[in-house]
């Protein structure tokens, strides 16, 4: 069974437990999840459940559907994924899966023109360029990084202080190989190998964590942003 927590301005406004195989999201009353805001299309997106999981499908909406801050048209979604529609955040909890549906066209939807939405769209476009150029998911150097962009092409990318690791990081008391980023199919995860507490994802120390688009990875004092190519 799946659950969607709908947040607006970081306040939880609704929790939806899903029993259907197809869940519609949009501004108007016929939707399963109603987001009453002019930035949301009447039929904005759907979440569809199939054998392999849940899929979010954007219904050519005007302002777009974002999965973990990346604009998507149709993507698999997983537990803890964050769907953003207009000013709404929909946090997906899975023991099944979820989908959104909306319609986009010019159906009376107000064009979102907030600073945040603009930034999101701009970064989304930049990120698309980055992964297109790299031909793979990418780490973007944010702080104390030796590189601007690093293509994650290997099955295992090592991170640490040793001379031989792929990604060198800065900081005290780090292990030679502090962490590894493992690619399985199109899915990436980071696993801490060295001393505990030195690998963080979005500010939280992790031993092992699946990576999602936009995740901020810190190893020691170095920080990278994970930009995911389409799953």
């Amino acid at each position, binding site marked *: 069974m799946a659950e969607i927590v709908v947040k607006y301005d970081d306040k939880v406004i609704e929790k939806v437990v899903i029993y259907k195989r197809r869940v519609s999201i949009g501004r108007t009353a016929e939707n399963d999840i109603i987001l009453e805001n002019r930035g949301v299309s009447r039929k904005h997106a759907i979440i569809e459940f199939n054998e392999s999981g849940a899929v979010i499908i954007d219904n050519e909406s005007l302002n777009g559907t974002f999965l973990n801050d990346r604009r998507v048209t149709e993507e698999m979604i997983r537990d803890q994924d964050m769907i953003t529609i207009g000013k709404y955040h929909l946090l997906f909890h899975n023991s099944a899966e979820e989908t959104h549906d909306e319609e986009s066209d010019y159906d009376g939807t107000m064009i979102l023109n907030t600073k945040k939405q603009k930034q999101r769209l701009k970064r989304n476009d930049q990120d698309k360029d980055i992964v297109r150029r790299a031909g793979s998911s990418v780490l973007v150097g944010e702080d104390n990084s030796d590189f601007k962009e690093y293509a994650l092409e290997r099955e*295992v990318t090592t991170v640490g202080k040793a001379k031989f690791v792929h990604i060198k990081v800065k900081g005290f008391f780090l292990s*030679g*190989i502090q962490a590894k980023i493992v690619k399985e199919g199109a899915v990436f995860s980071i696993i801490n190998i060295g001393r505990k507490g030195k690998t963080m994802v979005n500010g939280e120390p992790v031993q092992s964590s699946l990576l999602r688009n936009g995740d901020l990875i810190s190893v020691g004092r170095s920080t990278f942003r994970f930009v995911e190519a389409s799953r």
Partner: protein
Amino acid sequence: MIIAFISDVHANLEALQVTLADIEKQHVDRIHFLGDAVGYGPEPNPCVELIAANCDIKLLGNHDFAALGLETPDSFNEIARVSMEWTLKELSARSTTAMADFELEAIDGDFYMTHASPRTPDLWEYILDIDSACSQFEHFEQQVAFVGHSHLPAFFCKRADDTISQRYITESELDPDSRYIINVGSVGQPRDHDPRACYVTVDTKNNIIRYHRVEYDISKAIASIDSHGLPQILGERLLVGR
């Protein structure tokens, strides 16, 4: 100064303990470990702990790489793969953290060290004969490269006139005008038909290199292999040193 070099312990605790005790008798100043702490054998955690506590330079071998999940054991033979799967389950977080500080290559004065080959330390080439040795000399600057990996003691000498020879020695004086690649053999799984644990010391004052062979209780190592459900052949090969 006397430096001891050990390699390819492969989780054979019996062999490692006896070897370290023997090294202690030589009054060495430093012990360097050339990789493959784990894989094959039944005692990976105590072996990693002993190596971390006793060795100055500690290197990673191909089995250690696989044990840290840095590469898949695809290139391993069936027995190595089965024991690596067992090792992956057995290895403690503490051991993993310790091994995360091991290096791929290192230098101590005139000595270069890596597990397999100076040319490509992470591709695990074997240096088995003059042919495979001759192309390696240009990939390190020091006088001597110490390696492991093949489990076969080997001594390659490149003289000032560029001739390269392979000699079978137990002791030799290092000529200051020559360069060397020295395979220090294996502590935990010798393959030169001598089942005794093997290690090397270098006396830097007199430029003398020595191979040491140490007997240990192989039956204990075999009992441990059996009790941990590892393939029987891993014990059998210890008895005959191959």
